[in-house]
């Protein structure tokens, strides 16, 4: 459980994290999304106390990170940048981390095995590929068998097999009842594992939602139907939770709340010929862009004049395209 309350971090003039309020709950994967420079990494550094907040608080398991007797058992973190001396072997690095908590050698060997580092554990980390480095970072994060796992852009630089491995790992960790908090700047990546989403932009909280709600909010999964008799089809399909839109004089309808299969069956029962029946999945990526660009527009009218205005133009274009 991670709880942030009015969390703020300023570096001189720049506000990296701006009064963030959020809660990350156990038993689920929570995605932490935002464009580059949105303050995701800073927030994660604040959680584990590498940076001190300018204002507000963030706690893990009800306490500030530094107040835990065994921090590695409370939170395991993989941060964006490499945090290992290139001259040390993977094994020596993990062992040194383990010593601080009295974690036994057996557990070190366990995480090495778990992350598939067995063959390179005795090699110096400087020679590791990006993917191996990520695996070592994850091994270190899991070392203390932590109740909360924080991973900053974990799939960066991983091959497809590695990406799949991370995905399964995250799901498993959450299923074991742990709190899993994963950042990414790619919605496509996160939507495959995350249940809950915390979206930030320019250090501010833009949305605290679920993948399901986000889809619904963005227009949901609609189905495009073209038929000979759109008027009668509307009547046939109408019902609670079903929304139908269409232009007058057009054969096409947009239906949300019903699957393409149901629509087809009902139309057949009513004897209406369909010319087209196309499920239209809303792009989560698009929904994400809409949310984040809104924030940019908001900023544009208040503080960040010129730069935001340029991005607002881009938003209009993408808005009209959508």
């Amino acid at each position: 459980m991670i709880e942030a309350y009015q969390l703020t971090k300023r570096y001189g003039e720049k506000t990296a994290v701006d009064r963030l309020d959020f809660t990350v709950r156990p038993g689920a994967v929570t995605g932490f999304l935002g464009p580059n420079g949105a303050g995701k990494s800073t927030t994660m550094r604040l959680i584990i106390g590498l940076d001190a907040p300018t204002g507000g608080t963030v706690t893990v398991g009800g306490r500030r990170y530094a107040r835990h007797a065994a921090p590695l058992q409370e939170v395991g973190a993989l941060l964006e940048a490499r945090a290992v001396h290139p001259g040390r072997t993977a094994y020596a690095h993990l062992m040194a981390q383990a010593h601080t908590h009295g974690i036994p050698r057996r557990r070190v060997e366990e995480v090495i095995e778990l992350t598939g580092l067995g063959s390179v554990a005795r090699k110096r980390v400087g020679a590791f590929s990006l993917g191996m480095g990520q695996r070592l970072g994850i091994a270190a994060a899991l070392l203390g068998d932590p109740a909360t796992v924080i991973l900053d852009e974990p799939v960066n630089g991983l091959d497809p097999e590695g990406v799949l491995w991370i995905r399964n790992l995250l799901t498993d960790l959450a299923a074991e009842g742990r709190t899993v908090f994963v950042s990414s700047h790619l919605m496509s990546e996160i939507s495959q594992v995350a249940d809950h989403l915390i979206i930030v932009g320019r250090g501010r909280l833009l949305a605290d939602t679920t993948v399901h709600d986000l889809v619904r909010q963005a227009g949901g999964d609609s189905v495009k139907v073209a038929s000979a008799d759109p008027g009668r089809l509307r009547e046939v399909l109408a019902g609670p939770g079903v929304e139908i839109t269409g232009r007058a004089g057009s054969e096409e309808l947009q239906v949300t709340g019903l699957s393409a299969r149901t629509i087809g069956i009902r139309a057949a029962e009513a004897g209406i010929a369909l010319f087209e029946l196309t499920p239209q999945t809303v792009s989560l990526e698009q929904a994400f862009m809409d949310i984040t660009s809104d924030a940019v527009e908001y900023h544009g009218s208040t503080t960040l004049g010129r730069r935001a205005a340029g991005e607002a133009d881009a938003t209009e274009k993408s808005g009209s395209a959508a």
Partner: protein
Amino acid sequence: MSTVTQAPAPDESPVRSERPVYKVTSWRVLRSEWSKFWSLRSTWITLGLALLFVLAFGLIAAARYASQSEAGRPVEGHFAGATAVSLALFGISFGQLALGVLGVLVTAGEYSTGTIRSTLAAVPRRLPVLWSKAAVLALVALAVGGVGAFVSYKAGSHFLSGTPVALSLSSDGVVRSLLGGGVYLALVGVIGIALGAVLRSVAGGVAVLVAVLLLIPGLVALLPSDWEQDLGPYLPSNAGESMYGLSQSSDALSPGAGLAVLLCWTLLALAGAAYRLMRSDA
């Protein structure tokens, strides 16, 4: 928690109930820093160099002195006023650079490589890390410096027996001086640790270390002589020299005072390092 993928309850309890109890203690942090210290090649290289400097320079100095003395010429230059101890400790001024640099590497190296993030994630209270690093290096440098000084003295006496400077270990102040050499190297190492922690840059730390140990004494020598007499003895390197020198010149500090002054410098540097560590983001 109402979430999309609800954790199956039977899975959760075993994970929780079997969890071992870990705890961070000062002793464990020390253990961790000890293992980190020895798991880098740079440690072995710099320690090897330090030992080599102390031994090789001490032996060469003794051999040179002996050959000059045997030739019946009056001993001059570097060796005027030499003692068996000063010859044995001739390499200290080089050894101190190796150990000081090692100190800088131990702390600043963590910042330049990012290791500090792992370190502070494991020990978020931070200060135990600094104390442990200082303790590990002080202990090792004391051992290397002490062993180096005694071996250098023992091997040197081989050349020096029969010359006017020959001394035995039981002579007044010999053991104190040789131990003082080891203590000096240990404290310089700790100052290196503190400089690395304050500056967080290997290059910066080494530069300041060299300035403190070599440049500033040279600079102070250029000051008006009464200033020099007031300031000079209190510089770290000069205070150290009075600690491990067998005979003191009239304006130098006593060995005890030298140790006290050098300890003050070391604690001051450590205090600065502690302040920076606690107050700045990692």
